[in-house]
């Protein structure tokens, strides 16, 4: 059932679903933004050139932000710009003219964690303010403080349970957003400066070197044996099982983490959560119990793409020992992205490859599940080649035509 139809049908059937949560996806660049919308996101969040906390994502130039907002408006979607670093004075000096540009572009929200940035944004623009998870908001009183400041939405700390979200909304009605999927800081987000001191890069200005993913040798104060552990290596969040509770709690937005992640990740996670939300809404509307097999299938699809294994983070209860992968032996995945389809010219397709491509390679279209084979490859000047480099742009002839924006994957075992 199309989402729009589902919403109106369900809305009439059950008042709880009048407040369907928005599905909010990450977009590290324009290509990923198009994928996020194409695969079912209601909204996407992107980093601007200034101060977006993911220095090594591509981030958006001012012109790209303009294109992004136009795209969102054309599709009836939302586009939020992330400004969630902790600003120093020099950053605010740079931010002010950028905000003037953003005011003219009119994204649908700013994601901000720092009071100074929030103040400057409020003075320079009329863009709605969403409080970032970096602000570590854990309770209704802090939500109320931000609401009094003028925040339209608060993205709670990942340590806040869905049950607590309900309690917060009872005391302080406001749009709440929670993370539903993706990598997690081991610490309260924003309460970490390891990179600042260990690598001279600012964890809270986009330079995090992910020291929490490293292995540490531990020894007691005084005598005692040494233990080695990835003691801070948080498993990834997967919240399929919490969607029903989140919908019932009237949480406004369910967010997927990952502006640094691959095209495949963005497309896959967005598609699965789109399906999951729609399925669960349908069940709620029909007063039907959720089918565990269907939920398992959603989880299986999410597990296929590179991950550190999963936990439900703090969505159900305080994150415990099971939320840490102390013996990290590599990422889990059963599919690998091969390429994204960028353009079409007669019988050939322009592919942006993520991994090496070969003539004869058997691929699968992630969207349609169709199998396809690479029949020929050529460089951009049309010269035939046998192999395309990882990260390269090549022309390919394929046995089954994809659509522009589709993602081709290498299935397990190939």
């Amino acid at each position, binding site marked *: 059932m199309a989402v729009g139809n589902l919403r109106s049908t369900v809305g009439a059937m059950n008042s709880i679903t009048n407040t369907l949560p928005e599905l909010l996806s990450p977009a590290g660049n*324009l290509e990923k933004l198009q994928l996020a919308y194409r695969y079912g996101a209601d909204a996407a969040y992107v980093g601007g*050139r*200034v101060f977006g906390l993911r*220095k090594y994502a591509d981030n958006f130039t*001012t*012109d*790209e932000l303009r294109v992004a907002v136009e795209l969102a408006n054309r599709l009836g979607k939302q586009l939020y710009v992330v400004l969630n670093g*902790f600003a*120093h004075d*020099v950053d*605010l000096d740079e931010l002010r003219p950028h905000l003037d540009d953003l005011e003219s572009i009119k994204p649908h929200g700013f994601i901000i964690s*720092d*009071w*100074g*940035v929030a*103040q400057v944004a409020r003075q320079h623009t009329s863009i709605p303010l969403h409080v970032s998870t970096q602000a570590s*908001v*854990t*309770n209704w*009183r*802090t939500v109320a*403080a931000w609401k009094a400041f003028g925040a339209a939405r608060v993205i709670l*700390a990942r340590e806040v349970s869905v049950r*607590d979200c309900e309690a917060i909304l009872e005391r302080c009605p406001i749009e709440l957003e929670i993370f539903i999927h993706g990598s997690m800081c081991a*610490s309260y987000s924003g*309460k970490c*400066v*390891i990179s*600042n*001191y*260990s690598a*001279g*890069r600012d964890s*809270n*200005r986009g*330079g995090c070197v992910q*020291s929490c993913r*490293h292995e540490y040798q*531990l020894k*007691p*104060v005084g005598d005692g044996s040494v*233990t080695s552990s990835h*003691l*801070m290596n*948080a498993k990834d969040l997967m919240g399929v099982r919490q969607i029903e509770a989140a919908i019932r709690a009237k949480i406004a937005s369910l967010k997927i983490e990952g502006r640094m992640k691959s095209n495949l990740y963005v497309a896959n996670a967005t598609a699965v959560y789109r399906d999951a939300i729609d399925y669960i809404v349908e069940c709620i509307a029909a007063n039907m119990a959720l089918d565990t097999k269907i939920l398992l299938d959603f989880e299986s699809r999410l597990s296929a793409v590179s991950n550190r294994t999963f936990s439900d983070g703090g969505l159900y209860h305080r994150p*415990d*020992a099971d*939320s*840490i992968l*102390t013996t990290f032996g590599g990422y889990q995945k059963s599919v690998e992205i091969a390429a994204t389809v*960028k353009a079409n010219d007669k019988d050939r397709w*322009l592919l*942006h490859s993520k991994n090496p491509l070969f003539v004869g390679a058997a691929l699968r279209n992630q969207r349609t599940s169709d199998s396809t084979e690479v029949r020929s490859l050529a*460089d*951009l*000047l049309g010269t035939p080649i046998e192999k395309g*480099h990882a*990260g*390269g*742009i090549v022309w390919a002839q394929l046995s089954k035509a994809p659509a522009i924006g589709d993602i081709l994957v290498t299935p397990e075992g190939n």
Partner: protein
Amino acid sequence: MITTFVSTDDDVRASIRAGATHLIIEHSRITIRSFYQDDEQSFAKFGQLCQIAKALLPSINLSMAIDILPHEDDFGVIQTAIQAGVNAGIRSFRIQDIGLASLIRELVPNATITLAPEIGYHSAESLRLALDHVDWVSVSNEVELMTLSGLGPLSQRVEVQVQGPIMIQYSYRRYLDGLFGNAVSYDRRASDTGYVGRQVRFYDSPNGTVMYLYFDRCLLRELPQLRGLSLHSWLIDARGESPEYRNLAISTYRSAFQCDEIDPSSIITTLSEISEKAQRPGFFLRNNTDQDRDRLIGDRSIGAVVRDSVKDRYLVIEIRQFVSDLPDRCEIVTTKNELKIATSLHYRDAISLKETRAAKPGELLLIPWIAGVGTKSTLLFY
């Protein structure tokens, strides 16, 4: 004021004897960094420690730390603790979460509140805003001198940590309990296998895990700058350190606060020996972390190299701006932040291979091959 944290009667006595004029009393149920785990939950400790402190120094300033990030279930306990503090005569409260200010003002209308965010509030703008809502701010260790100077008279409502361990992470997760699981709290030294020799410290308690840096913050060589700020309070953090450290650090800064002459070198040496950690100013003088590449690129980015698809023939550029007249001459900043000049450039549409002078975001163009320019290098307007 010379401020320090106390958890026990020994801490109170030692701190006052050494010259502290302001004690922040901690109870482990409501503070994240106490190294002393309280087993009583009535908060009677506040009354006991206040009494001892007042007997030793009637003019002593006393505060209560409530620096957990409260979840909904915590408010009942916090209210009980505040009431116990009020009964003990405390009217000054120290919080990490700005949301607690409203609760304290409801319960204690004449309370004074210090916001101690641990991390964050790095700009003068954010500090000014915070000071609109609370009485004092204890700034995080990443705030630099220039920002503090820029506050002007407001710096008289600011506290700076002048000495002690630097907290570099706070997690709600119990890292060590998950690994060992047989005690109330855990204290471990650790080194990242990628940075061997830099020994950090993890302290895990029921409130979560706090991670400390391999060196201490020490501003004994920056006393002229410190004095110039006319701060409300100098904070000496001796939590988790030895009594010798507490005594030496507090007495030294008390003397320095009174502008007595001190010899920083010998004291720094002694503090290093006692704590087995280097003593450094950290980011107090300057904080220039991670600012180079963005400053270099600014708004001049035309596009980024997607992939050097064919060596010696062309580079593929993904365009990032609307450009009506693509330049013949560009600067290119590589991922190693090296600058190169490219001249006699011409551009071809990647699909039609036709020459073009205009482009828009997302389009792919070919330019001639340039040696040493790899993926993610950025073309800039010259």
